[in-house]
């Protein structure tokens, strides 16, 4: 074990051969924005569990005292070396005793990755109690809790959490204190002496949340749904995430089925003192789309979005998402509707429509098209063909990735489909146009990508993975038996050689002595059992 940097304190339970760096919740700029607004000026901050480097840097740059608690020894050393001013506690949360309490405790990765393999896993409630104990009066705890019944669970074909990964020596599914809903979560926080101030639902998935919506922002217009339902590349889908998320919201289950909840709770201040959260309003919603973060707010009855840091408020247009309308038409093989709508979009682009819009960020109210969140145009204005071919490409990829039925006979070829869509709109494009469209899509951030695998079924995959495991084990057995066999054969060869040498020696003796005696002797020696029988017979007779 190498020497730890000076600012690392080993508190017990540290994991030497472990890293959480690649599996911690990958929060993006939306969470960063929220944390920025929560940071107390000149306060003490604790980051419990692994956090993305950008977030740690932001906190380290603005808080007076920053401590982190990590269970992984290599992670702790790397962080301590990178930020020498940080106090890095390395070990199990249960072994952590805060000297002075903290004004802000951030546990944006939840409590799962705060206990180590060195001790039996504590209950979720037990871990929360330790963390809540570190919050100063008037201070805040920001805690993420993964929803076991999140919408992302329904979308993913593979078993939850890749059952049985190295991190799951004590899966939390068997912990009865783990909150089984937002209500239970609030109750747990209150029991721990904290008052819930804000409760956010995080979308689109628990691994990389990109949008935070407060309870008051859950009756969102459809136009804002898309960023909530992105799917990462490492997913095997069984359902269309956009469709399912839209249904969850329209059924009023946006909070109950959120993949992750982020709660901001505070410890009541000592008598007469002012709490950290007094009079502070946090955003209703923060949505990250590509490289852009937008704040969602209400202006009277209307929803508005504001591009951060200093964009002006823009109303959210009413109408249906073009992508949804197109998917519906594809599902019922209504190619005429597809042609007309695409032609309409193409005409809108040619009439100077927003070049950054695509079918998934464009609404149609039956007459007019409008971009949901018009972004800044790229430095070089792309050609209309490139813009439209990007729209066609993006839709083709998303349609195939979501696994919807469609009238075209090639299920896995988005290039061909995109070119066909351009033809259907009466704007024929060639491969070069399409390449420019794809390039534009990549430049604008959040490019559409086709997943590796086609939608498939949970049990089929389970069976396949089981078989793969069995095969690995069987191959390992074969390899081992081969090694043993080789070893035994070598031994056998040696024994045979020995036997051969002994025989040769015996023959040589016979030849040298050449007498009757030697022949009888060697024959007798070669047949010891017969000799023994003869001797016995003679003795008994």
């Amino acid at each position, binding site marked *: 074990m190498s020497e730890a940097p000076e600012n690392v304190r080993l508190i017990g339970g540290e*994991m030497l*051969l472990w890293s959480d760096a690649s599996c911690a919740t990958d929060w993006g700029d939306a969470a960063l924005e929220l944390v920025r607004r929560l940071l107390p000026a000149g306060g003490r901050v604790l980051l419990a569990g692994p956090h993305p480097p950008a977030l740690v840097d932001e906190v380290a740059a603005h808080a007076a005292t920053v401590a982190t608690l990590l269970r992984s020894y290599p992670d702790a050393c790397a962080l301590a070396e990178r930020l020498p001013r940080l106090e890095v506690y390395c070990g199990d949360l249960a072994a952590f005793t805060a000297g002075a309490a903290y004004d802000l405790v951030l546990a944006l990765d939840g409590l799962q990755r705060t206990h180590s393999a*060195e001790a039996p896993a504590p209950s979720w409630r037990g871990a929360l109690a330790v963390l809540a104990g570190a919050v100063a009066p008037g201070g805040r705890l920001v805690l993420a809790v993964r929803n076991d019944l999140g919408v992302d669970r329904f979308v993913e074909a593979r078993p939850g959490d890749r059952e049985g990964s*190295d991190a799951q020596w004590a899966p939390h599914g068997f912990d009865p204190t783990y909150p089984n809903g937002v209500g239970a979560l609030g109750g747990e926080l209150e029991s721990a002496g904290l008052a819930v101030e804000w409760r956010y639902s995080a979308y689109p998935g628990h691994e990389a949340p990109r949008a935070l919506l407060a309870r008051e922002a859950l009756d969102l217009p459809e136009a804002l749904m898309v960023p909530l339902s992105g799917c990462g590349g490492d997913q095997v889908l069984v359902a269309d995430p956009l469709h399912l998320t839209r249904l969850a919201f329209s059924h009023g289950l946006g909070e109950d089925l959120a993949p992750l909840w982020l709660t901001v709770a505070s410890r009541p201040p000592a008598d007469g003192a002012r709490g950290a959260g007094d009079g502070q309003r946090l955003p209703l919603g923060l949505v990250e789309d590509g490289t852009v973060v937008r704040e969602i707010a209400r202006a009277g009855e209307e929803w508005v979005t504001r591009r951060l840091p200093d964009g002006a408020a823009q109303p959210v247009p009413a109408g249906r998402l073009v992508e949804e309308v197109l998917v519906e038409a594809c599902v019922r093989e209504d190619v005429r509707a597809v042609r007309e709508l695409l032609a309409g979009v193409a005409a809108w682009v040619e009439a100077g429509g927003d070049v950054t819009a695509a079918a998934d960020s464009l609404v149609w109210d039956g007459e007019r098209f409008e971009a949901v969140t018009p972004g800044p145009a790229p430095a070089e204005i792309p050609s209309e063909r490139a813009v439209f071919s990007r729209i066609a490409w993006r839709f083709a990829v998303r349609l195939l990735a979501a696994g919807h039925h469609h009238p075209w006979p090639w299920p896995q070829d988005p290039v061909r489909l995109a070119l066909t869509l351009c033809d259907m709109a009466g704007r024929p494009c060639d491969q070069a146009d399409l390449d420019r469209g794809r390039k534009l899509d990549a430049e604008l951030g959040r490019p559409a990508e086709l997943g590796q695998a086609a939608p498939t079924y949970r049990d089929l995959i389970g069976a396949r993975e089981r078989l793969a495991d069995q095969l690995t*084990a069987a191959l*390992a057995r074969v390899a081992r038996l081969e090694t043993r066999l080789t070893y035994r054969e070598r031994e056998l060869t040696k024994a045979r050689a020995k036997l051969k040498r002994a025989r040769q020696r015996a023959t040589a003796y016979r030849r040298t002595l050449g007498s009757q005696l030697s022949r009888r002797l060697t024959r007798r020696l070669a047949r010891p059992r017969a000799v023994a029988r003869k001797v016995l017979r003679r003795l008994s007779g």
Partner: protein
Amino acid sequence: MDESNHWYGHSRILSGYCGLPDDTPKRIQGFLQHGWNYLHGFPPNDHWCSPGYPRFIWSDVLRRRGWSMGRRGHYLIGAPWIYLLHQEPGLGRIPEAERRGTIWYPFHGWEKSSVHGDHAKLAAEIREVEQGPVTVCLYWLEFANPAIRRAYRSAGFRVICHGERGSRWDGNGRDFLRGQLTELRRHRRVASNRLGSALFYGASVGCDIAVYGDPMQYEDERPEYGGTARRMRLWPELHGVEVDRAQAAEVARRELGFDYQATPEELVRMFGWKRVGVA
């Protein structure tokens, strides 16, 4: 399966527990943890433990650590020592008041790696600390070295060796643990310069334990274990000249896996000692 399954007479003890003759122990279809360890029950380079065969380990913390390091197929049965105690409740037992002195186990190397340290200095330290008679028990490799034997003998200690750890084919290791049990039950204290199996065995049969003196170094000590510093952090209460007996017995209970003792029938099935028809 693997040679180490038969070391220290482990497979013979388990055969005996299962009511089978122990002259030629059968092959165990799996890998038996052969010594106390604070990684995952096996050495860091355990590629020889082929997946698909169970890893028979002593305690749950090894399972959790092993799991986090990508190992699967752990099967907790506790240490063979607990099966020996089960079979030999009275072996070597003498009245409690007659137990005398300390049995001292200097940390040992093994057939492929030796240990570096100053045995004479360690002997002097033992002399200084221990009040009663001292028996020093060496591993056979160190016992074969006259210089090391002399270092302890000249300090007035009795020097013994529990023998080679043996193999499946020879009877060498057969009575290793029985001999150790007899010795431990004769002594009042067991001590070493490193926490190890012998100390936990001793604590489980009522010895006081102590860990002191230069912990010595392997020639190529693996960093995965985290070294002496990690042992000190994990078990600070077990290090020192005087250690709380009840606490030591409790840790020994956990580390030797007394709660995981399996039934003979279960072991017979798990070790592949029962004939099964192939469908």
